[in-house]
């Protein structure tokens, strides 16, 4: 203000009507862009979630395969354990039966029990006692049975009995 008592009104290139129009257009454009941005973000988030789910799905598939393998392995182990348990039971029964087989007159000093083989060391008052009371049942169990006798000074015999089971040819 150099000479005038009042300040001039502010001058604008655009009219108030145009300003109003521009304002509403701006709001419309902003809303459009914000909607676009919102959808874009949502789409991105959806893609991201989908990728995560896909990767999780793939991981789960891999895990399922692994678990199937584990299950197979565990089943195998279970079968194996059951086999061992059965064998042990059988073995236990066999040993029990074996000791049931041994008459009181015969004394066993050592018994070696293998898968298809039973080796007995012991002493018997006589060969006949052994043959009648122990060898007969052993023969009924094992396919082959060999016995060696060694005379002892007191007239008894120490014996070694080797008994074999023949596996059927598969």
């Amino acid at each position, binding site marked *: 203000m150099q*000479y005038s*008592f009042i300040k001039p009104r502010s001058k604008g290139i655009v009219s108030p009507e145009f300003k109003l129009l521009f304002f509403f257009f701006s709001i419309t454009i902003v809303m459009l862009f914000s909607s676009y941005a919102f959808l874009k973000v949502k789409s991105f988030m959806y893609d991201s979630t989908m990728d995560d789910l896909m990767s999780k799905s793939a991981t789960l598939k891999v895990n399922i395969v692994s678990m199937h393998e584990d299950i197979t392995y565990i089943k195998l182990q279970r079968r194996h354990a059951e086999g061992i348990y059965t064998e042990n039971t059988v073995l236990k029964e066999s040993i029990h039966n074996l000791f049931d087989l041994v008459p009181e007159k015969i004394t066993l000093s050592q018994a070696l029990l293998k898968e298809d083989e039973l080796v007995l060391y012991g002493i018997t008052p006589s060969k006949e006692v052994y043959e009648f009371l122990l060898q007969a049942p052993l023969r009924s169990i094992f396919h082959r049975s060999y016995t060696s006798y060694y005379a002892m000074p007191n007239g008894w015999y120490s014996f070694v009995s080797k008994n074999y089971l023949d596996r059927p040819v598969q």
Partner: protein
Amino acid sequence: MKLSGLIKKIYQQIFIGIVVQHSSMKVCVQLRKGNRLEKEVSREFNISHATPTAEANEFIKSYMDESPFTYIAVLNDTLTQGAIPTCSMHQAENFSDLGSCVTVCNENKWMVYAEKTELNALQKRFLVNGLDFIFSPFFILSNFFQDKIEGKTSLLVLIQDDYLSLCIFAEGELLFANHYATKEAIEDESMSEELDESAGESLGFNLEDDDLSINLDEIDALDELDALDDLDNLQDLDDLDDLDEIEDFEESLNEAVEESEVALEEAKTKYDSKIDNFSDDYKRFQLIQASLQNFYNDSKYNNQFVEETYIADACESGPDLIKFLEEELFVTAYKRSIDLDKELAKMAIKEAKYAI
């Protein structure tokens, strides 16, 4: 290049100067592009009570619609305004009470002031189109006589139809200023015989002098009244029963009377304008004389003597004012016509440099 400069070059700028009198309004519109004047339109409107009519507002609005950079400047026509030879509000108290005034300082030397409420009222009168600048007549005067104020003590007078502004400058410094409404002064003084007498005495001039009274000999139209002489010839009518002659006589008599009435009316109008012009000049002279007396009598102004008077005439006044000033006040007087509306537009251009 500054943005504002670029905008000015691209857009047309419109400067509208408005000078308001009580019953007329002058508008000058300048359309400019950069520094180039493309078009200038001046128009005068008849208004009432110094308020623009709908036609005037429409005229201004038509130009305002052409460019967003339209500046409307109006000359301050308020009564409570003036100028004082200081920019210090403290010192200004010695000259006038500026408590309710708006002030504008010029070059930190002197300032103009105007009553705030009157400025608001002025803005209200132009509420339809609004105002951008209100200029003081003292700034117009000092700019118009820029080459004269730097020298010896000079009286600058701005004469409008209804207003008179005067200020005294010495070596570029304002000494004294006053603003009057001559319309009111004329009315007041016509009511006051006392002032008339004192003025008459001071001038050695009497309104009843032959020079200024109506000289019927000067009215040519009155010669037409010679036709009335025909009435003298009534005696020559030998036979009053001659009806044809009587009818002719009546017709010629009526024509002569009608013509003489028209002539009298014209003469009266001519005389009235002459006496009005004289009267206006004389009242202006009285105001100037009274102001100078105030100036000389006030000790604040160091008794400086006004040697020259420069009159900016915005209303085509007669030559009498200069004659009165030179004969009665012993000052050399010069008169220069001023288009106030154009001056306002010019000043608006200067002021608008600070606006964008």
